[in-house]
């Protein structure tokens, strides 16, 4: 009975997503259901845009910059993280919730970006990637001339 609802295509999940969407519309900037469609340990992302850039932010606690691999190919941003497994000798684990291993995400970007100007910054375990939009994707102000 419970197993039937484990299937993500089951209508009850559709209903849930629909209700979540409606709820977030009513409540404004509420958190959307976290981790939907995400494998445990896969980095969750927040994406937003401004007029001239796209921003992708990830929570990457404990990661050093050399454990991150970010690349842009065409309209795809791929992020690969490697969390090495640290096995402690002569120790007993009472809780083990922090993910270990390699995970990757590939995001399709909604606008063409200037791949050479992409910047990534890691601070306090939060990674922020700034992807400046390509020239043709930036809005151009049109001057209206009065006669």
């Amino acid at each position: 009975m419970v197993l039937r609802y484990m299937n993500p295509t089951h209508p009850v999940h559709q209903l849930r997503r629909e209700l979540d969407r409606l709820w977030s519309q009513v409540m404004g900037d509420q958190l959307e259901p976290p981790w939907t469609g995400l494998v445990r340990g896969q980095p969750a992302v927040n994406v937003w845009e401004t007029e001239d850039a796209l921003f992708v932010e990830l929570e990457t606690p404990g990661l050093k910059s050399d454990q991150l691999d970010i690349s842009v190919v065409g309209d795809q941003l791929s992020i690969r993280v490697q969390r090495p497994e640290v096995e402690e000798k002569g120790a007993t684990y009472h809780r083990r919730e922090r993910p270990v291993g390699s995970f990757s995400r590939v995001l399709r970007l909604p606008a063409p970006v200037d791949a050479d100007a992409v910047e990534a910054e890691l601070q306090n375990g939060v990674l922020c990637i700034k992807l400046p939009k390509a020239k043709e994707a930036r809005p151009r102000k049109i001057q209206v001339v009065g006669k």
Partner: protein
Amino acid sequence: MADDPQVVKTPASEVAPAEHTRSGSYYRPNVDIVEKAEELIVRADVPGATADGIDVKFEDGTLVIHAKVPPRNQDVDFLVKEYGVGDFYREFRVNETVDVARISAELADGVLTLHLPKIEAAKPRKIPVKS
């Protein structure tokens, strides 16, 4: 064991602690708890938190972790929002074998590491067998 001078009992506070008045969501950090012969180690993922916003308390046998995360990117329109930004909070029951006075904490790359040393009486001791 109750008479052991090493057992440090925290006095119950006489004044009720201030309640959290900040609105917004709290998140439950993922933790690893490792027990070694000498100590317990708690590692908690608190991305976005800074050292001055970390509040670790031990009271009445409960270890409380509260990591304040300054809000960021509040006025942007998200295209994708898979996680929310807010404070991390979690409580644990810890038994009396922890030497409360020597609990230490450090923060690096968004991971809070707590060291909870065991009291002498609780450390494993090899008993030599005479023949």
